């Protein structure tokens, strides 16, 4: 092909920038600018009671730490994110293995298990608060075996945090499962079969062949589910609103409480903390999982 002999690439008349301008303007104006402003507002006294915004250094953070709000919210958020991420990936890999093969029956089940993805997190929260009510369907079912069982799943700090994380997992599992199915189907079948022929049982074959080769899907799903859970808000607001006490008060709930109280600067400080957590925990997590991919 003659045009390949020329070093300069040929491209159509006209410039590239008109194609980029709408995206760049909107992203800079409504994502980047607020994001940068937040770094500033986090160190200001900004309230709903006065129109003046004044820099007050690290006062907001000192206040939030002294009152215990921030340490609790960070602990709750990280616990929530770890629990949600673990449950999400174990459950979704399991479902993906069951529905891996493409056939008519599995198309039906894939579509069925996808349904919770459509429901708004808020609605998912309401549905599961009904199921988890002390006299709700779950305890009615347990009551068949253990008469009189009436544990308040959302009324006890420990079970509430796990329950809310579970609702998050339930809501998103349909999509994560499909990502894993894509990963499973990208693995050359001959490799798994070679292991089986060499005498490995299904369990061994999964851990020594399938799971390592699932690394790209694993990286993607672990990162997305973990970072997503650090931003949790809707489901918590629909179920426990941060309670009982502050046992499920994730950072965004704490942020909303400050905002409702008129403490906009404090709310910005908590919001900045979410960003810092995403960077401080997310970047090493991505780096670690990527390295693991290369080794696999």
């Amino acid at each position, binding site marked *: 092909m003659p045009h390949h002999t020329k070093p300069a690439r040929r491209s159509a008349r006209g410039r590239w920038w008109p194609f980029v301008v709408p995206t760049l303007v909107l992203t800079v104006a409504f994502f980047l600018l607020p994001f940068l402003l937040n770094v500033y507002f986090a160190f200001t006294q900004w309230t709903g009671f006065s129109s003046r915004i004044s820099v007050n250094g690290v006062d907001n953070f000192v206040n939030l730490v002294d009152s215990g709000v921030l340490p609790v919210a960070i602990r709750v958020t990280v616990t929530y994110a770890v629990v949600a991420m673990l449950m999400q990936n174990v459950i979704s890999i399991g479902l993906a293995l069951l529905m891996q093969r493409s056939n008519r029956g599995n198309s039906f089940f894939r*579509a069925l298990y996808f349904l919770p993805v*459509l429901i708004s997190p808020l609605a998912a929260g309401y549905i599961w608060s009904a199921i988890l009510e002390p006299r709700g369907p779950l305890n009615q079912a347990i009551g068949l075996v253990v008469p009189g069982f009436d544990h308040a799943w959302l009324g006890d700090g420990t079970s509430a945090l796990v329950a809310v994380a579970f609702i998050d997992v339930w809501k998103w599992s349909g999509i994560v499962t499909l990502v894993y199915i894509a990963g499973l189907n990208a693995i050359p079948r001959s490799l798994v079969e070679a292991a089986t022929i060499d005498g490995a049982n299904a369990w061994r074959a999964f851990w020594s062949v399938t799971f390592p080769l699932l690394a790209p899907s694993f990286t993607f799903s672990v990162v997305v589910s973990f970072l997503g859970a650090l931003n949790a808000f809707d489901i918590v607001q629909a179920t426990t609103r941060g309670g009982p006490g502050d046992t499920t008060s994730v950072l965004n709930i704490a942020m909303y409480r400050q905002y409702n109280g008129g403490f906009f600067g404090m709310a910005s400080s908590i919001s900045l903390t979410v960003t810092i957590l995403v960077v401080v925990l997310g970047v090493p997590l991505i780096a670690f999982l990527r390295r693991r991919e290369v080794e696999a």
Partner: protein
Amino acid sequence: MTTHGTTARRRRPATPRSELLRVVVLGVIALPWVLIPMWLLLVNSVKPYGEASQLDLALPREWRWDNFAVVFEEGDYPTALLNSLAIAVPTLASVLLFGSMAAWAFARSRRVSMKVAYNVCVLSVLLPPAVLPTIYELQTLGIDGTRLGYFLVMVGTRLGVVVFLATGFVRAMSVEIEEAAAIDGASKPQIFRLLIVPSLLPVLLVGGVILIITIWNEFLFALFLLRGEESATLPLGLFRFASASSEVVAFRWDLVFAHVVLTSLPLVIVYLFVQRRLVQGLSEGAIKG
């Protein structure tokens, strides 16, 4: 069938018994995972208040279709539905159009300024958007609390996803057809419309459905940015309705469930149409390109 051991094993289909076991396991898990929650929701949305408060799975003794009428009137459902449509549809259209235009440029141009712009866009995929300064900025622009402001924020915070997905996709495409078209005198807008958009359709379809699900269900920014009654979207309408009902008496499960049914309905209807291609696209790896 060949008698050669290895080949026979490699070609061996799943035995009917293990296949049956798999289907049974999937069915048994689907019961508490999907079917019972959906049943609980549907059946209790048509029960009277007292019956629904028992939160059981029995059919209604008295069918109360009126619940939906109550949601329509007291829950202001038609307004919220129109608001959701008026925000979600233009958001999706703008994000897909602008995002794929930019993605093409990012994938093909080698200028440093383009690389910087690309990284700014992709940053928005990973980092959470900041809601309070957004309020401040919209106040400064005089569009705080309006649907226009919320729409602009939705677009600005979601373009990154499309740019990220589509740029990877375009990079994997051969550039030669575009070069040939350019030599034949095609302009950039022509090439974009006739070559790039058709090739991007699979990724735009799957990306578009994921986006419409998250935009339609978006709650955090709606809660902060849309404070007026008349501008509420469906999730916000549901939240206010549920919160109001719990303040007056005990939680009105009947009405909240009826609202959840009506709020989820539009997406479920869309899903019925695109279900096959969406699930197939995702399970073939459309998200990761």
